[in-house]
């Protein structure tokens, strides 16, 4: 069911924190504690390093590819409190924008659905998140402070198809911009962009975790009115939040309590499979059964769990 195709030797000098494929699945971006971002061209089982980006001054936590309609654009965020937006110009990758308005580590970033425009959200340990919008020639930023006390760990955009419009007709323009964030206050928060005031307002606070929320992931729309958010936490649990699109209520369902801290949740492109990964280096895949139960499709352990991870 899960068959290894290839192993990309990244050549990083330190721990890898993130790896993301671009929209087409042909390029791989990785980032590491060695403060670098690397981009590989992946073809079949071979891969070529095409860029080694060294502008960050701290561990780089995450990378994110923009939708290709905007060009070949990659964003990275780092412990150095910066977000850097890189763009391929010709055959060369270079920094096109740097955002350094956070007081602390920028932990997570996520591009908005391309329908909204070239917009990047990033979450920082200073408890705030920022939304950077590319306008014709510059980047405008809006910082939403005190989103999560102690720190904001993860951010994810809602798909552009608004809940309740299953037919997908209400694409951007009418679709409300929403962001979900997860923080050290163990909350998952949903933010909505109020186009009237131009402000991001806290729409909902989802309580369910009992420790740092490490990652949140809003599932891609699969054409149904309902919305799904996955969140994972230091409390070793993954919660699936489901909004049927009718009542507007977010129903939590605990996916599982794992043996270790869960670092990441990632939805498949089609939005039906969730990959859960955590401190024990295990990756498990989950899928919702017809009965609405989440079942584990596969569970793979790789290596030994690191001894120094914080488990509770």
């Amino acid at each position, binding site marked *: *069911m899960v068959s290894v195709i290839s192993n*990309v030797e990244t050549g990083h000098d330190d721990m890898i924190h993130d790896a*993301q494929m671009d929209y087409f699945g042909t390029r791989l971006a990785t980032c590491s504690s060695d403060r670098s971002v690397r981009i590989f061209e992946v073809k079949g089982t071979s891969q070529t390093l095409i860029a080694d980006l060294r502008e960050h001054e701290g561990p780089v936590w995450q990378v994110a590819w923009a939708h290709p*309609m905007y060009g070949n654009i990659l964003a990275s965020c780092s412990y150095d409190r910066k977000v850097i937006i890189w763009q391929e110009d010709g055959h060369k990758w270079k920094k096109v924008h740097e955002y350094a308005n956070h007081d602390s580590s920028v932990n997570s970033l996520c591009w908005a659905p391309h329908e909204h425009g070239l917009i990047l959200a990033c979450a920082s340990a200073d408890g705030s998140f920022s939304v950077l919008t590319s306008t014709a020639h510059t980047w405008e930023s809006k910082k939403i402070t005190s989103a999560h006390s*102690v*720190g904001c760990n993860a951010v994810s955009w809602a798909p552009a198809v608004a809940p309740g419009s299953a037919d997908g007709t209400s694409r951007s323009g009418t679709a409300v911009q929403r962001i979900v964030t997860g923080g050290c206050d163990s909350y998952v928060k949903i933010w909505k962009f109020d186009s009237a005031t131009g402000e991001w307002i806290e729409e909902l606070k989802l309580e369910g975790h009992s420790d740092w929320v490490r990652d949140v992931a809003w599932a891609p729309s699969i054409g149904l009115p309902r919305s799904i958010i996955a969140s994972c936490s230091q409390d070793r649990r993954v919660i699936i939040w489901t909004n049927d699109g009718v009542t507007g209520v977010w129903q939590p369902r605990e996916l599982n309590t794992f043996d270790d801290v869960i670092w990441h949740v990632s939805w498949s492109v089609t939005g039906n499979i969730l990959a859960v990964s955590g401190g024990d280096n295990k990756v498990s*895949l989950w899928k919702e059964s017809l009965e609405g139960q989440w079942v584990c499709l596969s569970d793979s352990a790789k290596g030994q769990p690191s001894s120094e991870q914080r488990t509770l």
Partner: protein
Amino acid sequence: MKVKEVSETANVAWSPSDVYPAYLACGTSAQQLDASFNTSSTLRIYDLNIGQTNLDMKLAASVELPARFHALKWSGLGGERTGLIYGGCENKAMYVYDASKLMNKAPDYQVCTTEGLHSGPVLTLSCNYMKANFVACGSSDSEVTVWDITNLSAPIIPGKKLSLGANVSCVEFNRQVEHIFASTCAGHCVVWDLRKQTSIMTISDTVSRMKASSIIWNPSVATQLLLASDDDTTPWAQVWDLRYATSSLKTLEGHQRGIVKTAWCVHDGNLLITAAKDNKICVWNPNATERGLEIVGEFPSYNQWCFDMDWGQRDPSLVAVSSVDGCVSIYSLLGSGQPPTQSDKFSQIADSFPGMEMPAVAPQGATPQPIRLRNPPKWFARTAGASFAFGGRLLSWNNQSKSVEIAQVVTEQALVERSIQLEAALSQPHFAPFCQAKAEAAFQPSDQILWQYIGANFDSSPRNKYMELLGYSTTQVSTKIHPLISETEGFNAEFLADKMADLATNEGSTSSLDPSEQFEMIASGQSFDKTPETEVSETEAEASLPIIQLEVEEKEENNHGLITQALLVGDLESAVELCIKDRIHPHALILAAQAGPELFAKTRDVVLAQVDGSLSSLVSAVVRGDLTSITTTCNLSKWKEALVAALTYSNDEQFPALAESLGERLEAKGDPESLLSAMICYVCAGSLEKFVSCWIKTRPETNQPNNLQDLVEIIMGLQQSLSAAGRPTNLSEGNAVSSLLCQYASLLAAQGSLTTAVSYLNSATQGDMVELRDRLYRALGYTTGTSNHPSSQTATRSSNLRRTSTPQNYVQSQDRVWVNYSLACAGDLPMACQKPFYPRILQSVKIKQPSDELSILPTQYTLSVQDQQRSIYGDQSSAQPALLTPSPGFYSPLPVAPPVPQAPAMMNQYGVMPSMGPVQPTPAPPTVPPTGALVSGSFRRGGPSRYVQEPARTALPTNMLNPAQPPQPAPFLPPPSGTNPVHLNPSMTPLSAPAPPQFFNPAATSATNSMYGDQQQQQQVHQTPAPPSTKTPAAFDSSVPRGWNDPPPPSSSRKQCAGEPKFHGGHSGDKKLLMLKQAKLLQQQQQQHETPKAPEPIMCPVPGAIAPDLPQQFMGFQHPQYGAETHAAGAGPAVPVAAAATPEPASKGPLPLEHQVIQDVINEVQSRCLHVVQNQQMKQRLEDISGKMEVLYDKLRTGQLGPVAVSGVHRIVNAIQNGDYRGALGVHAETIAKGSFSELSSFMPPLKLLLQYCIQLQVFLQ
């Protein structure tokens, strides 16, 4: 910056790590006095209130206690989940409180106390990290005691009491070894072993003489500890390792004044905090190798020193700090926090102690810097992860290596396997075996049935196969009928009616033995009765040529005498009336046929009205060619029969609509069985879109991969079968189909089957599909034209061709979807879009007709037929044919009453048919004297055969007749097949000139050869008047292999007359199969001539009778002047006709004023329909309607319509204006019933269609 803050002068302790939410205990400190000199003691527990993004904490518990605290600890070990709070107090006692009871305000919150058991105040205490019940206390006078709180009566005094007489400033248990702890007293550190009950080591810094006042053990290295000095002269901290205890490993220097408190992070041994009297709180990395770089961070300065500190147990990023200014603050090591609200707090203290040396007031508004650790804490970084990528790829990484693993996730193994099978089947030249296999393997009977129907199109004769599946195998029925037929000779309507009744008992099977066909045969046979060939070919007729009895006597029992008399004088009308009166229907009909179409139609209707029973309605429908009424009114339980009828009588153009309408009715019924039936209808009709929407009704959960796969298999099967039938479909046209395919493709893509997925999207034209296709192309590394990928363009696969497109197509359409963004590299976005090319089916057929005994010159006929996309009916350039075109639903026995200016055109076309054209305006049929030909038995002789066979023998229309089917077996091929090319070409020639240029596209034809199979055969390279020499018959033949059963392409079929087949069908059951084939062939031929030639058989008069009247027309038939590409040359008798044809439709006058409303209303309602219609097919038909309505207008202009028809139309229009479509339909039916068929047939069906569409689309004029 602070995360939280509370005004307390208190020692602090965090709740244990497993308590949620986190609490902070604050016990009034014994060492500090606030300005009020209050010495009362309070223990408060605060809820961290982390959810609120402000500085406030929630008070969870508060109790007054007898003494203030020197030390406070909160341990989670033991029975109580919320743990126990230990307080070392000034009153020489240690207290143990139950935290949960405190918070619940239970009175018995105190667990135990060592009151009176210490010699001095308990200055310090340490809870054992592994054994819950042990706690070490340090008091004055070097007293160190370890208590078992479950048994306070037996304190452990570890070893000999030091005789230093000083206070014990700190005790601390080792983190890893439970029986080891250390204490500091008078600058010395003593390590105790509880097991041995002795001190095992004393650490004294003999070098720098640092006096240790506090100890903290390394959380991860058992033998290491950190000693710090609160002496301002030695403001250092030293790391000692007990294994090398001669000197310290490292000295942490940085504070200017004595260090009050230290804390070592349990989760990250590289983090150590020291708080000193220089108001600084420093974060160190005690393990830093490089000297001077140990300080990794500093807490924001609030200009007040801190005397107590606790590292968060639950959240290691939080540190609670108690400062002497009476403030307990919580800081986050990660830098978050709130802007300060009480920057002037220290000034209060400065006021209280004016003598003290206090720092200057901090500048107002200065925002303290957040803590910024040089490196992230260990617990902060995520060390492993996994993320999905396009194509079901899963990336994963962890701290075990520096590599990223790429894996393929396949969650729908079954789907992938089935898709591979489907792909394999699709790549085979023959898809039929797959259908068969599917049918055989089907679990559900419904699937089996559907697959059988889909497979039917791969059969050599799909229609027969369909009928067989429906339970009406033609051969079976033929066998049933054959004996009956062979008993009789010749035909009469009653006998036929008996047969039909017979069939009806067998579930109303429809055969091709309908009366009209017979009459057609009869009529045509009669008309050519005198030609010698007919005699030869018609053997059956021989027997029925007996002596003609000319009985003129009038008898009582019947009117035979009168009839004979009437016949003798040529009063056919009276004869017919008499026959009807006598109920000699066959004779009546025969005579009427002879008399002319008008009379025939009238007679027929009367006869049908007289014939009783359900059968007559079927016969009526069949005769009128009103198959629509069969499919729209039949009892749904007899849907099979209706479908069989449609299969039998409709042409390929008409059939889909019929089957579809039947399917719609069934679908509307909604029960599972009906839905299945509806799906069968849709399969037969080839209505993918409707099929899919119906299928979804039966299986709502199409998002389940297996169901989706089922559906896609059927869609692909249907598509294959349609294209095998010469009706290629574009899968991306319909919404339901394309969205399903998109869904399917994305599902496949998610399983990593990218190449397969992309093959379903090659013809994509819509947003989502194109987007997905683009993604797949790029994912597959296909060249997309960007500058980045100059790789070779090898993307086109044969399977792509299957779905008609290539990546290049994609590339070019890409930027339709993605706007070029300012930030985007321009080179990345491929430019230009081009729709996939579909050979549009403007057709031109060239017929090479060698000379034969009819002395037709070897000339070439070129005619063009408009393609389906451009409706000929609505097309201006083809206004003329539009008028001449019969409505699909009706057979019009009479030419559509052309308006005067167009009469010449008619003549031109129907030159050989004297009863038409010029004859038409004067409907009175020539009074043909009765001849022997009228004897019923002779009706069968084969005029048709002559016309068919001869051209066939001379290999005339090779593009029409399959070489594989020699002409010989087609003795009954009805006249039009042979005559049409001859008749029609001349009139068509002018039409070919305005044909659009794209029409001529040999490349398209060849490129799509494999896909479009049969269709291509019809697509001849069109070159307006091409010289005959350019096309030799051989070349022509080879390029046009044609199967007699090949359905015509949808394009041409649109022009076909619905009622035609029955007029040309055979008249004998045992020849039925053949007739069917011929009917089909005929249809094909007819489709190439968009003019109604169906009337011919009926019209065709006895040549001798008519020829004198219209010599030039007849000559036109006989002579090859049409062979000349341009008939403008006045060579032949047809010249005036051709000349007259040119100045024409533009000069149409307005409608008579009283009728103008008709046109207005119809145009209005039609345009409204067009406005709202979504379905392309419907739209097409709607557009066709206007052309057809021209016939009505023309008739109105010329006043050709009878009062019944005129009033009927007016009433219909009136009803339309009132929005009463049901009423309009009622009037419609009524009008048809009452009116003259020939008058109405051309425009009433489209009018009805328009009404139906109005209902369907909910279009109203109001």
